[in-house]
């Protein structure tokens, strides 16, 4: 009798409300997407949780400070104005030092990605870095890029409105989008255009006139060259009336940002982007509308949007498993974490990520890394395979030094890693790959040779 009413109860509850453990496959899928892949023990422990518990656990780990100490110089802003009266030699030395610092900054972030107990935090910081783009190439100050990273980190799973307001005035962003060149009577439209086109509304949802008027509202935003901090210059600000998106008023920059946040397209743009990052290449219009509304109704709480995406049935749908391509960072950090590589210097991996098309702190342009299939072309696919070959070439990796390249100092204890699998191939496949191997060749390999086969299979590029 007791069982019958339980079945009845289950029959009337919506599927998502059923408090059943998610199981191995769903846990692996969730961790693949949110945590730079995962090893057997992590998957097994999440498998015992329900979807909601698992997602809440992942979200609960976010927001802590990085465990990796930053480079020692991050507190010392070097104003480019210092170099104005410097000699040619001093300038060259400065450039070289800045170059070295740029490398140390990238190494710091990649190290954090490798060791963090909350890979989802790093994924979200990277997501926002790819949305609110600034690049070291143009900003030229590793200190300012580090500060921007701190800012993105602070708001990564917070409120999007707060994030937008803060990052718009972030000094690295001010430099990147020429905001300081935008003055009353002498407008520079760069920031106004990109904030509408890329950061909020999306292409085609505003007019050229809106861009011009918004640029006027952002005048006066500038940067204190000595301290590398945002400063508002009243005399450069155009305080006149502007007509933007059908509203009229003597808007300042913050008021324009609020106007943009008031448009429903903004939430939809952000949710669509999160979808393409976490769920599938093609956002479902109805689901996007639903989650965007939830996002907006919750004051643009990013955590709420992410939770909705990661607990939705569509996230776990069979057709969306293994539907996304790993980014260079997914591939490199994912491989190193999943197989528990011991690493020395991470610079070779920073360089590898750049070679594969993802140079941390330096996306190619303000639209960011396009992602998806753009990651894979003949050149990058071959490089990915070459990297994987190197990683798994031997038990102890000391590959021949390539001139001009840092040697890869890594160690993979394959025997120890393989031990829990008890040589069950099906289990190995389930952890290493997001789907069955693409190759139809029947394999008789075991152990490390089998791992090599699996990571060189096209399916290893999927998450």
């Amino acid at each position, binding site marked *: 009798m007791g069982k019958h009413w339980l079945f009845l109860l289950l029959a009337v509850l919506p599927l998502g409300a059923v408090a059943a453990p998610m199981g191995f496959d769903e846990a692996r899928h969730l961790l693949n997407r949110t945590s730079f892949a995962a090893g057997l023990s992590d998957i097994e422990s999440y498998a015992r949780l329900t979807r909601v518990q698992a997602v809440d656990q992942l979200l609960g780990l976010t927001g802590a400070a990085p465990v990796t100490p930053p480079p020692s110089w991050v507190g010392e802003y070097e104003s480019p104005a210092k170099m104005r009266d410097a000699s040619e030699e001093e300038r060259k030395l400065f450039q070289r030092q800045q170059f070295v610092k740029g490398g140390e900054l990238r190494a710091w972030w990649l190290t954090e990605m490798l060791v963090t107990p909350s890979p989802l935090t790093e994924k979200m910081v990277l997501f926002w870095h790819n949305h609110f783009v600034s690049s070291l190439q143009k900003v030229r100050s590793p200190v300012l890029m580090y500060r921007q990273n701190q800012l993105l980190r602070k708001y990564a799973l917070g409120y999007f409105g707060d994030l937008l307001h803060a990052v718009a005035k972030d000094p690295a962003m001010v430099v990147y989008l*020429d905001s300081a*060149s935008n*003055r009353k009577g*002498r*407008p*520079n*439209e*760069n920031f106004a*255009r990109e904030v509408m*086109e890329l950061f909020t509304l999306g*292409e*085609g949802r505003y007019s*050229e006139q809106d861009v011009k008027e918004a640029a006027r509202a952002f005048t006066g935003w500038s940067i204190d060259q000595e301290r590398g901090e945002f400063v508002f210059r009243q005399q450069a600000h155009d305080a006149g009336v502007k007509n933007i998106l059908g509203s009229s008023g003597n808007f300042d920059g913050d008021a324009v940002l609020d106007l943009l946040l008031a448009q429903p397209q903004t939430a939809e743009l952000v949710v669509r982007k999160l979808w393409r990052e976490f769920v599938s*290449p093609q956002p479902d219009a109805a689901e996007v509308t639903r989650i965007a509304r939830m996002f907006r109704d919750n004051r643009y709480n990013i955590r709420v949007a992410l939770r909705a995406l990661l607990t939705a049935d569509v996230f776990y749908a069979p*057709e969306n498993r*293994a*539907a*996304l*391509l790993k980014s260079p960072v997914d591939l490199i950090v994912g491989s190193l974490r999943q197989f528990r590589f011991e690493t020395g210097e991470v610079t070779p991996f920073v360089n590898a990520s750049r070679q594969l*098309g993802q140079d941390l702190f330096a996306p190619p*342009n303000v*639209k960011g890394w396009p992602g*998806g*299939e*753009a*990651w*894979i*072309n*003949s*050149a*990058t*696919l*071959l*490089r990915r*395979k*070459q990297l994987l*070959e190197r990683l798994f070439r031997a038990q102890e990796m000391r590959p021949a030094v390539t001139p001009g390249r840092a040697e890869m100092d890594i160690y993979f204890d394959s025997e120890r890693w393989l031990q829990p699998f008890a040589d069950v191939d099906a289990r190995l496949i389930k952890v290493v790959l997001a*789907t*069955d*191997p*693409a*190759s*139809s*060749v029947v394999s008789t390999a075991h152990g490390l040779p089998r791992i090599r086969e699996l990571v*060189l*299979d*096209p*399916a290893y*590029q*999927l998450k």
Partner: protein
Amino acid sequence: MNRRDFLSAAGAATLTAWLPASAHAAAAGRYENLLILIELKGGNDGLNTIIPYADPLYQSLRPRIAIPREQVLQLDAASGLHPALQPLLPLWDARELAVVQGVGYPAANLSHFRSIEIWDTASRSDQYLNEGWLARAFAEAPVPSAFAADGVVVGSNEMGPLAGVATRALALNNPGEFMRQARLAGNEGVARNGALSHILKVERDVKQAAANLGNNFSLRSEFPNHALGNALKTAAQVVASKAGVAAIKVSHNGYDTHSGQQGTQQRLLRELAEGMAALRTALQEIGRWDSTLIMTYCEFGRRPRENQSGGTDHGTANAHLLSGGRVRGGLYGAVPALDRLDGNGNLPFAVDFRDLYATTLDRWWGVSPAAVLNGRYNPVEFLRA
């Protein structure tokens, strides 16, 4: 009477408008003719490249950044080259450099991303197409399978005009490196979704290219040692290998000169001119100059009135360069109408960029433009008969 009978009755050979290729004929392109596209990424300022030096509005719109009249390399009474383009003068003198002014399109879009998409897909301003115009050309008239690839993209991850589901487009940085790594590719496999399908296709393309590319990339000619020079050298090496490709795309970065334009553009144009001159020498060395067409392109030109940062904002109509052994040198299009700027302060266009594409498709490759470009376009006579 079916359509073809009507045409022959009307003397179809004299028609200059192009009609869709008949459905059952497998169109064949003359792909022994090569197209090399040089993308001036960021939107080159055409007004300071091909300069209307005799127009007083030029100086008054650009008090700080106009090129002084005495520095302009005059081509005719109205237009001249930026002095950094000096290395192109031999090509001009040999009548192998065509300059087209006023290239643009209706209802121009001022966003980098949207506008380059329009140029790459040859769409209308209000139309969104997924495939590049070259991808569509190669779908209409397939490139021989003996070719190493349909097209090659050097030094970039963006396929641009070569983006297409069925296009054999190869991203390549260095032919030697490619050939060494190519053994890693070639996984056969079953595609269960779009992502996997993409990977398997890339693997197949690599395998096929490697099989046909051969190993002879040697060239005596030297190239300038900068990013564009290296990319053009790679392009020339691919051509030297005699493997066969129909198109090569190379990108030159840095043209989005919102501030401090003078120094930046001077360097970029010098690199461009040196690169093109070196490319010509190399192609002559391997006997391909007469079967190569070089064309520059980019998302837009820039605004005639300078901004207050010593630079220029996004604009519309632009000047572009074409060169090759069979190019008919000279000036085409129309000088910039600086007295007829639109509400945004931008230039009207005189030549639709798709006219250039259509001319290339028809006259260079013998591929029907109408089938590829959805519309009627006018030839620009930049090729000798």
